Each structure stands twice: as structure tokens, then as C-alpha cells.
């Protein structure tokens, strides 16, 4: 049974339809990627899974529980088993790296400080930043901040992690490090990972399954290999990075000729 089942998801922001009937399955132990052009609501999807947003229609089942029917306390219990890596890292800026990673441990467990110290060191070691534990978030580079956030996300040994655009804006070295980490952590800790991204190469390198979203629907689903061989125009444009195709280059509206002529006519 999939860890996460999304059925017939509809979500509107104002008048705009973000999701118009989306079905998704996330399987345990696998890295599932959700990709698509910018603005297709990928981050929104993560917030829906985490219960921060409520769908207008449809259900989201996580580990057999309907996220949006859960009472407050149970929702919070469920969240303890979910790790989330935000695009900016979302570290608490007024406390050190160590305290950031220790945060979930201190809030949700009664472990003694000595144990917490060891756990934090282990998590930081996994992401390669154990010796940075005294630094403040402001002193970290973007890539390092994300790695600390990753250490924090796995602090409570969750059953799944959601990555919101982890590769965006990273230099090649940080990118490589992160890609490596995501895959390694998923395997060594037996996690389920959901990666939301539009960075093709990196995501294709680690994903076991990819969902391609556009226009509020799933337009393709498959392994990185099947996607490469797909016949769909959408997929081809996305995979090959073509400037024009089903997602148009020109913002829809008046044609160029009419525009110029109109202006000439007014004069």
C-alpha cells in the first residue's frame, strides 16, 4: 500500500485552479519526484500533504490517515513523523546550528541533554557539518543552510521527508552534495522521499518515480527512463528544455502585428 495516496485533488487559490483532479501515489522507501514548470503548485502540494492547506475537493491519505480529517493533536503527531526541507532552509535565525537541529528533539522528547548532544552530532555528521555546530544561520552559505535544515528534518527519524526545490540556486558542488545526500539518507534510513523540483538533471539522477504536473493535472508518470522515451509533447518540451511548445513562449494575448498596427492606427 502506498504511504501517501492522493485522490481527485482539487485546490483553488482565489479564482485560479491550482489542481484540477490530481491522483498521486507515493510508495514507501522510494524517492518520488514531482516536477513541472514554475507556478504549477508544487510547493502547494507539499503544504496540502502536510495539512497546512486544506483541499477544496479530494482526499490525501498519509499512512492510512486522512490528513484533513484529523483532529489538531493527531495532525501534530503525524507531522512529527514527517520531515520537511523548505526552499530557504527555514532555520530559526536567532539560535545556533546546534540548537536548530536540537529543536525538534527538545520540543518533542524528554531526552537528557547529553543524549541530545550525541543525536545532534550524529545528524550533523550525516550531512557533513558536525564541526559547524556553533555557527549561527546567518554565517552559513545557502547550501550549508539547507544541509543543516536537512539534519533538522531527520532529527526525529521521520518516516518521510519532503524536499521543496532543494536544488534551486545552488552551485554545482552544493548541488552534487545535496543530490548525494538525498539518495544516501533515503537508503540508509529507509525513508520515503518526495522531491519537488524543476531541476531536471539532478532529479532524474535520483528519482525512482517521477510525476510531471502541468495545468493542474498529472500529465505523465513514470521512471526517468520511460519519461525520456515518452511521446507526449509536454514531456518532450520539459525533458529537452525546449523554449516553445505546449507551454508557450509568448504570454497569451494580442498578436504582435495587431499590437503595432493598433498603435499606428491610434496615432
Amino acid at each position: 500500500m502506498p504511504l501517501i495516496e492522493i485522490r481527485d485533488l482539487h485546490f483553488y487559490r482565489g479564482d485560479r485552479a491550482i489542481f484540477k483532479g490530481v491522483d498521486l501515489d507515493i510508495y514507501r522507501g522510494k524517492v518520488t519526484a514531482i516536477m513541472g514548470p514554475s507556478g504549477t503548485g508544487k510547493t502547494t502540494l507539499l503544504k496540502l500533504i502536510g495539512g497546512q492547506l486544506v483541499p477544496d475537493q479530494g482526499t490525501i491519505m498519509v499512512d492510512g490517515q486522512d490528513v484533513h480529517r484529523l483532529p489538531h493533536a493527531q495532525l501534530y503527531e503525524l507531522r512529527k513523523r514527517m520531515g520537511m526541507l523548505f526552499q530557504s532552509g527555514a532555520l530559526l535565525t536567532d539560535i545556533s546550528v546546534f540548537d536548530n537541529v536540537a529543536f525538534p528533539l527538545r520540543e518533542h522528547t524528554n531526552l537528557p541533554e547529553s543524549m541530545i548532544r550525541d543525536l545532534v552530532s550524529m545528524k550533523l555528521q550525516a550531512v557533513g557539518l558536525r564541526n559547524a555546530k556553533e555557527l549561527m544561520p546567518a554565517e552559513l552559505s545557502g547550501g550549508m543552510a539547507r544541509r543543516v535544515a536537512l539534519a533538522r528534518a531527520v532529527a526525529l527519524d521521520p518516516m518521510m521527508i519532503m524536499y521543496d526545490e532543494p536544488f534551486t540556486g545552488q552551485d554545482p558542488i552544493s548541488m552534487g552534495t545535496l543530490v548525494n545526500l538525498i539518495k544516501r539518507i533515503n537508503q540508509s534510513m529507509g525513508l520515503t522521499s518526495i522531491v519537488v523540483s524543476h531541476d531536471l538533471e539532478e532529479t532524474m539522477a535520483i528519482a525512482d518515480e517521477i510525476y510531471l504536473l502541468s495545468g493542474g493535472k498529472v500529465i505523465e508518470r513514470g521512471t526517468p527512463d520511460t519519461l525520456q522515451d515518452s511521446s507526449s509533447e509536454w514531456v518532450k518540451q520539459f525533458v529537452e528544455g525546449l523554449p516553445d511548445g505546449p507551454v508557450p513562449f509568448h504570454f497569451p494575448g494580442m498578436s504582435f502585428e495587431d499590437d503595432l498596427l493598433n498603435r499606428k492606427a491610434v496615432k
Partner: protein
Amino acid sequence: MRQKKSTEVTVGLFVLLGMGALFFLAMKVSNLSAFNDEQGYRVTAEFENIGGLKARSPVTLAGVRIGRVERIELDPETYNANVVLNLYASFDTLPTDTAASIYTAGLLGEQYIGLEAGAEEEFLKDGDVIELTQPALVLEQVIGQFLFSKAEGDE
């Protein structure tokens, strides 16, 4: 959370400073230090007219403050004002024929009760009544009396 010791200390100092300010206001600025009511004893005095006397107005003897007015009630039978005085326990040697009058401090100042000691050998106790009272001066009545006597004098 690394709670710096210095933070806690400064917060403690802040609270002390605030309480100190309140204490200063209470003791040095307000009339709180004059509130020793628990050990006071109460006597009543009846006045025809209390003028501008209020609750908490001072009660003095030879100009020295020995208590305050606790409350003022209207007597429904005599149509006079019953004033309850709360006197400091340390001044318990007031003769039972002490007189109470209502004076004004300065020309336009507050009104207060001035006591004049009598000659009796027994002293006022809690619950006693001061028999001799003089009402407040009402300016209009004084002027009226003055004019009246002047008119009489001219005849």
C-alpha cells in the same frame, strides 16, 4: 536554548527597578504611608452641614493630623450628616467632650475636621460619639447674616 545567565540577571534587575519605582510612588508620592487604618479606632460626629468635606479628608488636633474621615452618611431622621472619623490608635487620649469643627485649609483649599480637646477625664473609645460639633461655614449664609445684622444696625 542557551539562556544566558546575564539575560536572567538583567530581567531580574528590570523587575526590581519597576517594583522600586512603584514602591517609591507608593511611599514617597502618594498618601499610602498615612494608611494605618487597621490600628485606628472609629468615632462618629454629627454635623448640620459638612460643606465640602469628603471621605479621606484629614482630621487634625492642634493642626497635627491624627486621622481621616472614613465615610459620610445622611441620617434619615435628624436630616444631619453623620461623619465617621478613623483616628490613629496612638492618639487615644481625647476627652469625651472634644469638639469637632469643619475648617477650610487656606482660602480656597480643602476642608478638614479640626478637633479641640475638652476637659473631661474619660477618653473617647471605638464607637463613641463626639457631641459638640460645629458645621462648615457656608459663605452665602455668612454674607446673609452680615447683611442682616448690618440692616438691623442701621435702624
